[in-house]
């Protein structure tokens, strides 16, 4: 089947019908090209949106309190609800579906940070060590807060990169003491946010802050991570359950959104990813539709070719060509055209998306990419392989009907149409 003769025969017929072969090949190449561009764009959009989620763990959930807006169990509306340290213990030990917990105590007003002669006003985030995982805090030197810092109410702080630059210039900040609102804190680490949003922020042990700044057992907000469930319904069930429990603990109507607010990222994340799965499926359907149009084109051309070559096929059969060898001849030609044309379309589609990606990377690395909802719009290797397999298969499919027709050519009739 793979000797030189059959290829010679195929190439000589292709040479005789250059334009037709080109047009046929073009429709297949176009189909694959569009499939690659669509898939790449779909991937790019998905990666872009995923990037937007990447600031935090996708299973993070925030909770905060306010004043009640619905009367409940004899209480009037307008009552202030406050989280406390017992809520922290409850969430960590008893609440269902909760993985990690961090609490936050807000420091009032702007607090001045100073070191030697340098000073500035920065945001202080008080938290538990778990926040490092939740908000994906990156430490460029030193360490983040740990449980011992919490238990011993240590006066330590992790400062953002901008704070380090402002206070320390080129000096190594680790182990140095800075004054935060006139209380000395030892710098134990420097954090660094590649998207430079949190660089003007420091992280302080929640317990220390609560004690120093007179918080009693007050907690302003909680950040928790939930179990990594698979459906949006399950994710919502976890946050609903926590709301029920909190409503019971603090005596407010569970439907009162003003009393306690929360945002469950996982629900949003799962929903968004669902949308992208749907988009991806849609893209495949359109792409394959385009491809089918190309394949029908090839099939059509091959049918005409077989009709034109009826006499030649008749001669071959009279001289001893078996039906299998005739089928092989037509099928191989069809596979050859679709595979080569499809491969060209594949390379061009992937090439375009890679080029686009390169331009995008340049833009992002030069700092202009923050608003772009589009990242790495490329097609992975596995997809390209399956597209190639689809091509070869479709080539065989396109050639099959014409090949069967060719094999059924009766030499007598073929040789008698003068």
């Amino acid at each position, binding site marked *: 089947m793979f*000797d*030189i*003769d059959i290829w010679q025969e195929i190439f*000589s*017929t292709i040479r*005789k019908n250059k334009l037709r072969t080109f047009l046929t090949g073009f429709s297949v190449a176009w189909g694959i090209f569009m499939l690659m561009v669509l898939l790449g764009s779909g991937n790019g959009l998905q990666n872009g949106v995923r990037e937007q989620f990447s600031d935090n763990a996708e299973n993070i959930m925030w909770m905060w309190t306010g004043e009640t807006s619905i009367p409940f169990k004899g209480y009037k509306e307008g009552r202030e609800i406050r989280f406390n340290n017992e809520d922290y213990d409850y969430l960590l030990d008893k609440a269902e579906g909760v993985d990690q917990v961090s609490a936050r105590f807000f420091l009032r007003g702007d607090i001045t940070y100073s070191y030697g002669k340098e000073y500035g006003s920065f945001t202080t985030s008080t938290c538990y060590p778990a926040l490092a995982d939740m908000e994906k805090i990156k430490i460029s030197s030193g360490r983040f807060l740990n449980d011992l810092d919490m238990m011993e109410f240590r006066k330590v702080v992790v400062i953002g990169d901008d704070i380090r630059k402002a206070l320390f210039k080129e000096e190594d900040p680790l182990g140095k003491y800075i004054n935060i609102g006139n209380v000395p804190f030892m710098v134990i680490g420097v954090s660094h946010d590649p998207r430079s949003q949190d660089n003007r922020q420091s992280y302080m042990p929640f317990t220390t802050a609560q004690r120093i700044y007179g918080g009693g057992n007050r907690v302003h907000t909680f950040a928790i991570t939930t179990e990594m469930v698979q459906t949006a319904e399950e994710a919502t069930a976890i946050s609903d359950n926590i709301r029920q429990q909190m409503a019971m603990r603090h005596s407010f109507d569970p439907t009162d959104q003003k009393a306690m607010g929360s945002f469950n990222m996982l629900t949003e994340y799962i929903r968004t990813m669902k949308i992208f799965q749907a988009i991806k499926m849609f893209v495949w359907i359109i792409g394959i539709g385009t491809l089918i149009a190309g394949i029908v084109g090839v099939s059509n051309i091959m049918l005409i070719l077989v009709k034109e070559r009826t*006499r*030649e096929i*008749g*001669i*071959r*059969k*009279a*001289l*001893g*060509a*078996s*039906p*299998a*060898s005739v089928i092989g001849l037509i099928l191989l030609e069809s596979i050859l055209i679709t595979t080569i044309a499809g491969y060209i379309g594949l390379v061009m589609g992937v090439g375009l998306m890679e080029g686009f990606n390169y331009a995008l990377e340049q833009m992002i690395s030069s700092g202009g990419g923050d608003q772009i909802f589009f990242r790495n719009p490329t097609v992975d290797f596995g997809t390209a392989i399956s597209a190639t397999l689809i091509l070869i298969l479709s080539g065989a499919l396109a050639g099959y009907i014409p090949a069967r027709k060719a*094999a059924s050519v*009766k*030499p*007598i009739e073929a*040789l*008698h149409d*003068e």
Partner: protein
Amino acid sequence: MIVLDSIHKSYVTGTNSLHVLKGIDLEIGAGEFVSVMGSSGSGKSTLLNILGILDDYDSGSYVLNGKKIKGLNETKAAMLRNEMIGFVFQSFNLISFKNARENVALPLYYQKVSRRKRNVIAMEYLDRMGLKDWADHLPSELSGGQKQRVAIARALISNPKVILADEPTGALDTVTSFEVMDILKEVNDQGITVIIVTHEHDIASMTRKIIRLRDGIIAEVIVNGDLQLYRDRVLAE
């Protein structure tokens, strides 16, 4: 070599059935030089197709070289055609995009002979036809007589037992026709059975036996020794 015993063949088109061969009994020995004659519709093409294993028959029996030919599948039939029979056609039926040598070599391709070997053999046969210098020419660059000689070389290359020629001179002028007939005679002299279908009397007269078909049966068989004279007369004209 060829034994036909009450061969019947009809073609069914829709509700109509056309009974073409109505019981053909025929025996052709090895090395015979035979022509089949008859007007159109007499069944001579059908007979040729059956002899050439291009078509099956309804009833009777056909034995070729001791092997009964009936109900073969396409692959088997193709193999037998390739081994036993060489075809020569009125319209030459060379493949237009292959040169003379490649056309001649084609039957050997289907015997899975290596490319180099079949090209050498093809050159030998072209040489025998006096076409050595034309080996690299496409059919469109050859004259009618040359084309038919290429076709005969192609028919001979697989060493067939039988040559079936369907109006081999139908598209040629008289002089070229006789040249082709001379070649076929030489082929016959080497012991190969040659069967020619023709409606031209002068061509038929050059064979040793004429089978005349009429309405699907054999009307007469003329064993021809003296008709050689007939040919001389035609040539003189």
